[in-house]
C-alpha cells in the first residue's frame, strides 16, 4: 500500500473504533443513569414509575419494622416534609439507623411503596450522604417558605 493510503486506512480504522466506542458508551450511559428523588418529589409524582431511581433522606424515627423472617424490613424515608414507605429484603448496612441519613435504590410500586434493591448508608458516623442532606435542605426551605406565607411560626422545622 502507498503511504498515503495507509495513513488514510489507519485514520479511518481509528475513527471507526472511536465511533463504535462512543456509540457503546452513550448507549450504556442513557440506559444506566440513575436519577435521585426526594420523598417530596416522589409525593408530587415527579419520580418515574417502572424505572429504577434513588430515594434519599432520613430513616424516620420509629418506622423500622422487621418481618418474622428476620431479613425483610420496612421503614419510611423522610425529608421531614413527606415520607415514603420502603421495603427491602437483605442485609442492611452497618450504619443504617433510625434518624440517620440513607439512600435507597429501587422502583416505586403501584401501591406507592418503594421497593428497594439496594440500601446505602455511609461509613462515617457524622457523615450524611450529600443527596440525603440536599433533600432535607430543600424540604426545610419549602417549609420555611410555607410558614412565612401562612404567617405562622417564624422558623421552619425543628
Amino acid at each position, binding site marked *: *500500500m502507498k*503511504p498515503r493510503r*495507509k495513513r488514510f*486506512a*489507519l485514520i479511518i*480504522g*481509528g475513527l471507526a*473504533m*472511536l465511533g463504535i*466506542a462512543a456509540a*457503546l*458508551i452513550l448507549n*450504556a*450511559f442513557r*440506559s*444506566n*443513569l*440513575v*436519577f*435521585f428523588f426526594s420523598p417530596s418529589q416522589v409525593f408530587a409524582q415527579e419520580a418515574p414509575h417502572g424505572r429504577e431511581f*434513588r430515594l434519599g433522606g432520613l430513616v424516620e424515627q420509629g418506622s423500622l419494622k*422487621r418481618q418474622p*423472617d*428476620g*431479613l425483610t424490613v420496612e421503614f419510611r424515608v423522610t425529608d421531614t416534609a413527606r415520607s415514603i414507605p420502603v421495603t427491602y*429484603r*437483605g*442485609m*442492611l448496612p*452497618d*450504619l443504617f439507623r433510625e434518624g440517620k441519613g440513607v439512600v435507597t*435504590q429501587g422502583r416505586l410500586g403501584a401501591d406507592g411503596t418503594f421497593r428497594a434493591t439496594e440500601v446505602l448508608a*455511609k*461509613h*462515617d*458516623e457524622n*457523615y450524611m*450522604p*450529600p*443527596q440525603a442532606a*440536599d433533600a432535607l435542605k430543600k424540604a426545610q426551605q419549602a417549609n420555611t417558605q410555607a410558614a412565612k406565607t401562612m404567617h405562622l411560626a417564624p422558623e421552619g422545622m425543628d
Partner: protein
Amino acid sequence: MLPEIGHFSLIVALLIALVQGVLPIAGAARGNARWMALARPAAQGQFVFVAIAFACLAYAFINNDFSVLYVASNSNSALPIQYRFAAVWGGHEGSLLLWTMMLSVWSLAVTLFSRHLPDAMVARVLGVMGLVSLGFLLFMLLASNPFDRLLPAADDGRDLNPILQDPGMVIHPPMLYMGYVGFSVAFAFAIAALLSGQLDATWARWSRPWTTVAWAFLTLGIALGSGWSYYVLGWGGWWFWDPVENASFMPWLVGTALIHSLAVTEKRGSFRSWTVLLAIFAFSLSLLGTFLVRSGVLTSVHAFATDPRRGIFILGFLAIVIGGSLALFAWRAPKVGLGGSFDLVSRESLLLSNNVLLVVAAGSVLLGTLYPLFLDALDLGKISVGPPYFDSVFVPLMAPAIFLMGVGPIARWKHAGIPELAIRLRWAFVISLLSAALMPFAIGKWTPLVSFGLLLATWLFASTIVNLGERLKNQQGPWRDRLARQPYSYYGMLLAHIGVGVFIVGVTLVKGYEVEKDVRMEAGDTVSVGGYTFRFDGATQVRGPNYAAARGTLRVSRDGREVRTLYPEKRLYTVQQMPTTEAAIDTGFTRDLYVSMGEPAGTTAWAMRIQYKPFVDWIWGGCVLMAMGGLLAVADRRYRLGRRNHVKAADLAGASSVPP
C-alpha cells in the same frame, strides 16, 4: 516541640523544592552547569526534611500526642500501635504528607540511579519533580497542615475510622501512592524531553524502567484496595466501580498503555508524541485521583475530607499542571518528528490499537465518574452512574484488546501478514474455542458469559505458549540453555499477560457461579450453600482492645466431613460508636467461603449472609502476577548493562535521534 520541628521541616523542604524546581531547569536552558548540579543535592536535601516531618508526625501518633489536631482526630490511646502508625495516612493531611514523602523517595531514587544520564536531563527531570513537590508542600502548609495544634490538648483522640483498622490499610495507601507518584517520574521525563527536544529511543529506554516500576506498584495497590474492600466492608464485593476505585483505575489504564507505547518508542522510535501525551495523561489522572479522593467532592465510602477550599487549591494545581504540560506539548511536539514507518498489520499497529482501546476505556471511566459531579455542580439534577454502565462499556472495549494481546507479541515489527499470523496461532484458536465450549460444563452450568470469559482467558494462555514455543524453537542448544537465554523482560511480559488471563478466569468464574444466601439463623440451624453445609452454633460476646463484638460460630462441613470453623463478628467500636461487620473467610485455591453477620433477628437468632465464591482469589493472584511481570521486566540485564556501558549506548542511540 517535635510537631513544630515537623512543621519547620516542611517549610525548609518547600524552600528547597523551590530551588530544585527553578534553578536546574533554568541552568539546563542556559547551559549553566553549576545551576544544573544543584538538582541532585536539592532533591536529597528535600528527602531528608520531608522524612523528618514524616517521622515527627509518626512519633506524635505513636506517643498519643493529642495536642496535635490531626492526631486527635485520627487516633486514640486504645488503638493498637501498628494502627497508630498507619493512622498517619488515615486522613487527609497525613495522606498528603505520605504523597510528598513518596515523591521525595522517587526523587531520591532518581538521584541515585541516574549516573548514566546526561546532566541536563537529570537537572530537568528533578526540576519538574521539584515543581510538583512545591505544589504539594504549598498545599499542605496553606490549607492542610498536619501539625496544627489543638490547644488545650484533647484528653483522648477521636480514633481512626474503624474500617481503616486493618492490616490491608497499613500497606494499601503506601503501595497505591508509590504507583500514583511513580508516574511523576515518567511525567518528569516526558516534560524534560519536551524541554530539551531529545525524544528518542534513548529517552524511552531511560524512562521505561521507572514507568514499569510505578505501574507494578499501582497494580499491587489497586489489588490490595480491592482485597481490602472484599474482606473489610463485609459484603464480599471486590470491585464496586466506586469513584475512588475509578480514580486509581484510570491512571492504571493509561499507565498500561504508556508502558506499551514506551516499548515501541524504544524499539522502533515510533509513537513519540503519543508516548509523551500518555505520560502527561497518566500523571494528570494520578493527580485527579488524589483530588477526587481527598477533596471530599465524592459521595463515597472513602471521602474523608469535606473542606472545599482544599478542592479549589487542587483544582488550580491540576489546571496548572495539565494545562501547562499540554501547552508545552502543543508547542514542542511538532518538532519531535515521526519514527519508523509501519504497515497496517504489524506489531506497531496492534500495539497502537490496544493503546487506543485502553485510552478509550479510561475515557469512558472518566466520563462515568465525573459526569454526575458536573451535573451536580451545574445544578442540573442528581444522578448516579452505576456498575451496569461500567460493565456494559468495559467488557466490549476490553474483549478486542485481549484478543489483540494474543496476536501482538508474535507479530513482526513493521510488517506482518494476517494469513501467516492465523496459521501460527491456529492451535491457540482451536484450544480456546474448545475450552470455551466444553469447560463450563466441567465446572458447572454453561452460560454465554462464562464461556466467553474462558475463551478470552484460554486464548491468552494458549497464545502465550505459542509465543514461547516459537521463540525457543528458533534457537540452538539444549532446552535449558534456550530458556535461560531469553531476557528477563521477555519473561516479564509473558508473566504479566498470563496474569491478565488468571485475572479473567477469576472474574468470570466468580461472576458466573457465585452463590449468595441471606438467611435468618437460630443457634443449631443449618444452611447449605455451594455444596457446603453451615451450622450456626450461636454467638458470644467478646471484647477487643477498642471494640466490643458479638462473635458467631459456624461449623462448615462438606459431605459430612468437617472443613473449617468460621467466626464472623459484628463489632461496635466504642469511641466512635460505629458498628462494623467482620466477615470470616475460608480461603481456598478454587473457592472462598464467606460468612458475615447482619443484625440480631431475635434473642438467639442472627441474619447471616453466606457466600460461596469460586476462584475469587485468582482475581488478586492475576494482579500479583502482572506486578511481578513488571518487576521482572525491570530486572532485565540491558538496563543494568545500560548503566555500565552508557557511553556506548548513548552514542548508538544518538545516531538515530532526531535533532530538535
